[in-house]
């Protein structure tokens, strides 16, 4: 087949209604969430008290038109979104802006971790299972990374140390997370235990047990915090372009992006990926096609866990420099990232960037406005809610017709990928 054919086919797939629809729905969901968020900020702004109104809702008064109303609010929604989005990028429209600014580094480093957790959730979704346990896998992976690197560090040092410890740490994270992910997989495959519940429970278990281990076995004696000793500085991801103090390494981001490509390739071009997608879409058909359902469930959970564990490894190696209890909710954000991306690995990249901005913007909002930063948590929930109901936007778009619905019912359009696969997962859970 000629290259032209291939390119044409690729283009045809790209513009396929489903893909654009997917994108449209994600954008619409984001937009709607922001809209609802604005309302929330305004309502909250009326409920609280302040010395002067941060935002006044009124109308222009040209030609001496009398002012009919002017309502003041304690919170300024425009400022909130300005801080949330522009602030997270370090104010790109201000003078002297450099893309290497510290806040941008925060945004990108959050993005990097979210790529891993997003991929983790997406892989599971594509295999038709819900992995709500990425958080726990990340905790276990991060802890495994810290222990391994601490154990191996005395043997090496300097540049050689960097070259050996980072891959070793990543491997440890992947293995730790992978094993921890395989547990709910095996429980589902061989004991029929609902993975939504087991993974949520395993999150609590991971936090508890790792917390215990850190406190009682591996605690840094010099610190009051519950954390391990610091990893040697040569086990830190080398900073490129960005300030080394920013805890962000472009190399890690590049690693994340290469994993996006790898996961995409795995899903689209390998036999294992075919098995995985088939069992995600239609388990009975997969079984018929010779896919070992139990093994695929365990394998995809292990893969998903390994990706989550890698996220933990990066969190430890790149951001913290040790393991500390109180790991941020990257795993739960991964769910949002994946759902927003329609469980598509490439989409995960973009969704992770969006959520990187949101997470980084949260602290900017917290700092710069009086609006409680939990707003971003609400936005996250709203985005998922809107993404879950493409029908809502179709109704709005007035394009609802029977054929589409029938197609969807049979688990079809890519637009509802997440939903439909989830559906399958849901059905088989119980």
């Amino acid at each position, binding site marked *: 087949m000629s290259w032209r054919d291939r390119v044409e086919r690729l283009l045809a797939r790209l513009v396929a209604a489903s893909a654009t629809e997917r994108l449209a729905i994600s954008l619409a969901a984001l937009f709607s969430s922001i809209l609802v968020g604005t309302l929330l900020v305004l309502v909250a702004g009326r409920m609280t008290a302040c010395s002067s109104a941060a935002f006044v809702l009124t109308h222009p008064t040209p030609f001496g038109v009398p002012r009919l109303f002017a309502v003041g609010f304690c919170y300024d929604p425009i400022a909130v979104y300005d801080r949330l989005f522009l602030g997270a990028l370090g104010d790109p429209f201000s003078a002297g802006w450099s893309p290497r600014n510290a806040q941008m580094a925060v945004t990108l480093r959050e993005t990097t971790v979210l790529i891993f957790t997003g991929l983790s959730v997406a892989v599971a979704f594509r295999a038709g299972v819900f992995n709500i346990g990425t958080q726990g896998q990340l905790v276990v992976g991060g802890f495994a990374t810290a222990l391994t690197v601490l154990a191996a560090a005395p043997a090496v040092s300097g540049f050689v140390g960097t070259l050996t410890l980072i891959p070793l740490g990543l491997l440890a994270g992947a293995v730790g997370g992978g094993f921890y992910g395989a547990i709910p997989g095996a429980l589902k495959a061989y*004991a029929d235990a609902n993975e939504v519940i087991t993974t949520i429970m395993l999150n609590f278990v991971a936090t508890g047990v790792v917390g215990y281990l850190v406190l009682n076995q591996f605690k840094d004696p010099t610190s009051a915090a519950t954390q391990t000793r610091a990893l040697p500085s040569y086990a830190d991801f080398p900073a490129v372009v960005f300030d080394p103090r920013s805890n962000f390494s472009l190399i890690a981001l590049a690693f994340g992006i290469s994993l996006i490509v790898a996961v995409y390739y795995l899903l689209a071009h390998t036999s294992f990926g075919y098995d995985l997608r088939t069992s995600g879409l239609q388990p009975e058909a997969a079984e018929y096609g010779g896919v070992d359902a139990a093994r695929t469930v365990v394998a995809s959970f292990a893969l998903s866990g390994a990706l989550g564990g890698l996220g933990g490894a990066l969190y430890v190696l790149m951001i913290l420099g040790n393991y500390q209890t109180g790991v941020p909710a990257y795993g739960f954000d991964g769910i949002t990232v994946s759902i927003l991306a329609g469980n598509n690995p490439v989409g995960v990249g973009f969704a992770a960037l969006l959520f990187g901005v949101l997470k980084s913007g949260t602290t900017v909002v917290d700092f710069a406005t009086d609006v409680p930063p939990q707003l971003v948590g*609400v*936005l996250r929930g709203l985005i998922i*809610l809107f993404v879950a109901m493409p029908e809502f936007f179709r109704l709005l778009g007035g394009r609802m017709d029977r054929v589409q619905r029938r197609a969807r*019912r049979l688990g079809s359009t890519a637009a509802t990928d997440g939903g439909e696969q*989830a559906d399958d997962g849901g059905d088989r859970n119980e």
Partner: protein
Amino acid sequence: MSDARADGSPLADRFSKRTGITVAVGVLFVLLAGARLAFPDTIAGDLFAIVTDRTTLGAALRFAVPITLAALGGIFAEKSGVINIGLEGLLIISAFTAVYATDTIAGEGAATQAELWLGLLVGVVASTLLAGLFAVVCIEFRADQIIAGLAVWLIALGLAPFASQVVYDGPNTASVTTPATVTIPVLAEIPFFGALFDASPFVYLMFIAVGLSWYVLNRTAFGRHVRAAGENPKALDTAGVSVSRVRYAAVLLSGVLSGAGGGALALSIGQFTGNGATMVNGKGFIAIVTYLFGNYNPVGAFLSALLFAGLDALQFSLQTVGTGLPSSLVRVIPFVTVILVLALVGRTQIPEAAGDHYESGED
């Protein structure tokens, strides 16, 4: 359907697993009793003393309230064919709202008991509204139930602390009155079971809700319609009953019950605390496990909630008795138990159509 199938009850093996677990718990209990007699100073001996202590029963009952109420809500929703994984969110939203409402209604002084119940009612309304949103999204807009349920959880997880921050300038609300313990004379004196008659009014509320739920599900036409909507919605539809309406009612009911649970949780401590996973901290998810384990039976759900709550209560006893078990590990016991139970029970008898959309007139 051949004769070969007629003799095998599809529930047989599941029941036997449940029975197995129940028997195992019983055997464990007897062993502990033996250990207590033989080696009174060992952990096992202590355990028996703790398990048979009325304090433990009292604590288990208190812990069981939010879990049981949410589980009852989950039963109604799922029996009607809507898997409500957002129970956690419903608990969170009503926990905050109930305290906020009580605080607001009471104004300056301390809230009276009547104001507290009014606050609970407002909490129930809030949770029901959120459940209503969930219902519209799932039934009207055909959203995937699991994803929409996750969304409900995440929204509440953000919204309640957000609101607390707005109103109280911190993730924790002010403290309000707590309900007065209701003590039934004489009965409260009974050694172990006395705890049943010397409890918070919310515990009695829970008992009433369990009984009523069982009655509604099994004895009323509405309950029948709920079950039919979950097993074979088309059968219900063709029998001339609107499936959507039944499902709406069931999901709203899950909001009402979870609302009572969340409100009771927060009001019994008089405060909503909202950082991290909030004070609800996974109770909604445990509720799901309890009704799965209880095989969608309200009484079964209550008993398994009591089991998990008992484990939760146990962890403090284990710590204070000084068993030497590290407290951070003891706290993990209930979660591990949930996993083990789920692995043992395995596939539960989920309603046939749960998770599916239903639209009248479709094939």
